[in-house]
């Protein structure tokens, strides 16, 4: 309230006339912070990747030649030819500066192994990974929120206890093992879904489910706890005493407030999701970023490693940005607080 007394009324009114709406200000603030974070991530990840690849054992030129021709046909002569062609004998710092300069002009360069444009290859792999990650996240949210809501309806009941078991099991199972178990059940024994591969519509079901099961456990737990707590809150009880129908209370107050907590947890889970994508893509032969990164590391394809790692890191930043924006949209309290202050 000191704010209103510190300024004359007339100028306050003028300020209000030209003031940025709180929602827009909050969005701009989020985007600004995340853009700075993204720039830091780009610099850090690029440099770290370059340093790590340089410190890996083995001669990079030999490894790239093996990626090109197959290790049966790698000779010192072919490695020397690769080294000369790609300028791998230049000082290491110069190679890094070249990469960063290219990055500054939005040029990701060409793969050292295939010669193809990294941006082109990255686009294909990124699209596949995003498809898988989004499918998994949506599935996990639907399953997790539903199970959590059902458990919260009767805390301590059988369903609630079963949910606890589900949460523990889902968290304890590594994605690789879970993926194998799902393949054995749905592909080998039931024969209803493809075991691996890409290109057909139903290829995505098992990899997305593998990721979703792991994520859904925590979503269920968070939903259950938040919902049980919100159901007991004063504002929910007050809304009920006002005579609002129980469905409306559930939708307007319980679901919306649970959503705020749940969306915040999506941000926490993004790292688990990205990590899982790398493992699951390898098992299901899904040609995404994880798959590309594994191959690139194997071949020491430095531009591809840097670009794939960058894309994965920026995916984390982007998803966190989306989470921030979604939270701001669902929960108006922080932006009002900022506006008041």
């Amino acid at each position, binding site marked *: 309230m000191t704010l209103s007394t510190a300024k004359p009324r007339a100028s306050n009114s003028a300020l209000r006339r030209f003031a940025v709406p709180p929602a827009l200000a909050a969005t701009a603030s989020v985007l600004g912070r995340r853009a700075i974070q993204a720039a830091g991530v780009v610099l850090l990840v690029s440099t770290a990747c370059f340093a790590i690849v340089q410190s890996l054992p083995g001669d990079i030129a030999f*490894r790239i030649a*093996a990626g*090109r021709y197959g*290790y049966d046909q790698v*000779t*010192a002569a072919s490695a020397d030819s690769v080294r000369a062609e790609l300028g791998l004998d230049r000082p290491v710092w110069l190679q890094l500066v070249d990469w960063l300069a290219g990055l500054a002009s939005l040029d990701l360069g060409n793969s050292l192994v295939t010669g193809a444009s990294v941006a082109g290859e990255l686009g294909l792999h990124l699209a596949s990974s995003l498809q898988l990650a989004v499918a998994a996240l949506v599935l996990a949210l639907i399953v997790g929120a539903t199970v959590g809501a059902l458990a919260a309806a009767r805390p301590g009941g059988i369903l609630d206890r079963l949910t606890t078991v589900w949460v523990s099991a889902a968290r304890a199972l590594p994605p690789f093992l879970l993926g194998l178990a799902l393949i054995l059940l749905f592909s080998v024994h039931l024969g209803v879904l493809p*075991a691996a591969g890409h290109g057909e519509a139903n290829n995505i079901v098992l990899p997305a489910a593998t990721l979703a099961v792991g994520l859904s456990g925590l979503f269920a737990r968070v939903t259950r706890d938040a919902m049980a707590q919100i159901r007991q809150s004063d504002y929910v009880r007050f809304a009920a005493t006002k005579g609002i129908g129980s469905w409306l209370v559930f939708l307007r107050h319980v679901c919306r407030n649970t959503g705020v907590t749940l969306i915040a947890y999506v941000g926490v889970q993004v790292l688990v999701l990205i990590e899982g994508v790398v493992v699951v893509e*390898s098992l299901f*032969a899904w040609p995404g970023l994880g798959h590309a990164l594994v*191959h690139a590391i194997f071949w020491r394809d430095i531009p591809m490693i840097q670009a794939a790692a960058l894309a994965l890191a920026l995916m984390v930043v982007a998803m966190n940005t989306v989470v921030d924006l979604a939270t701001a949209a669902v929960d108006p309290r922080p932006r009002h607080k900022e506006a008041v202050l």
Partner: protein
Amino acid sequence: MGWQRMRVAGASAVALLMIAGCAGAGKDTPAANQPLRVVGQFEFHSLDPSTAGGLFTRLEVAETLVDADSKGVLQPGLADNWTASADGLSWTLTLRSGALFHDGTEVTADVAAAALNTAHGKAGTPLATVPLKAISAEGNSVRVDLTEPFAPLPAVLAHTSTQILAPSSYGPDQAVTKVVGSGPYRVTQLEPPANIKLAAFEQWRGEKPEISEVTYQAVGRSESRALMAESAQSDVTFGMDPTSLQKIKQAGKLNIADVTLPRAILLKVNSGHDVLGDVQVRRAISMALDRESMATALLRDPEMAATQLFPPSLPDWHQESATPLEHDPSKAKELLADAGWVPGSDGTLERDGKKFSVTLRTFPDRPELPVLATAIQAKLKELGIALDVKVGNSSEIPAGHKDGSLELALYSRNYALVPDALVTLADDFAPEGGDYGAMGWNDPALTSAFDALASGHDADHAAESRRKVTDILQTQLPVIPVAWYRQSAVVSPRIEGLILDPLERSWRLSGLTWAK
């Protein structure tokens, strides 16, 4: 309550219908309506014949001038016949008439010569190592001029990197942008790095394939490939690991095709090393290896225990009369004692105060290599040899060879990269050594045997020269054979007629038929 029950019943019915629908989708429909589904380990990241070429000859999309049968005997490919001049410095390969590329253009000598010149310019291809003077077109023939006689030239022209593609395959900078070959199948869709769709080429000059459509899916993990085979998602599955293969064999629902490959797992020995340079020591190491147990336990195939360098799948080079390499730890100890090595206080052998401690490098690209390295480590320890196993990457072997730091290396070597093993052997056992062959070792008799074979002047005594080669390698052991290889494919009961190519040049899909 009634409404709730109806909802539950409705939901259950929908769920059941969905599962039934999915289940229906997974069942086999009449074979002719479905493409043949091939699954393998090879991804393609480039279409250039020098890098991804093997995949497109395996799929019978692209052809080479010269072909080879299952025994490695050269056969006509795009060239009907080939002849060498009397001095061996000029070869003429006459093209088969009427051959067409998939874009309808004719396979001409000009196009073939241009493709070979491109292959020659690529590092790492066998053609780049040929003493080549010029490749040109002469009417309907391709003429290859050499600076010195090179008898295995036709075999080099059977290597997959020399495949002949249509001019429309190349972009403006001569980069291969699509694969327009002349084989029985044409590419209809390419989705790098893993999906290829093929259709039978209507104007193929040979017998029309019964299976008109093929899909190829690359899957990197052998476990995933095995599960795809088990779940009937693939008709032909290549690249099986021994454990999965044994499980599938025991289940008995799928067929297995196999063939012994001209490939061997070897211990490369630095013969210039102050310890390993002693042939008695190399023989002792060889005798310490229990190859049969390793092949049985780790490769699940006791017949793959190597008794000599060349497997039976290289009939020209494999010598039935050769004295087999055997497991004889007692004799190994005697040999080491003769060489002056005596057990030290900790059991490790010592000579002149120096312990017998060496490093073995290997890599995990082939998953059996690290486990075999561990088994070798255990066997050498029984002799008192301290073996330090370093699992890194394959490039450390040629790099260690080049800088002289390599002591021992475990790797697999394919002797039929070109159908005539002489090309690979002459490189591996050249006087200066080879990246995947001898190191710090040479034998003039071996070199002269190779020279005689390469010149082609002494064709009547070729068998004798090959026998001499085996004898020298068997007694000198510049590389110590450990195991051979068997390639297996899992085949669904929907198809018949799969015969595996030991040279791994073709999967021979055009010869397959649907099971009646």
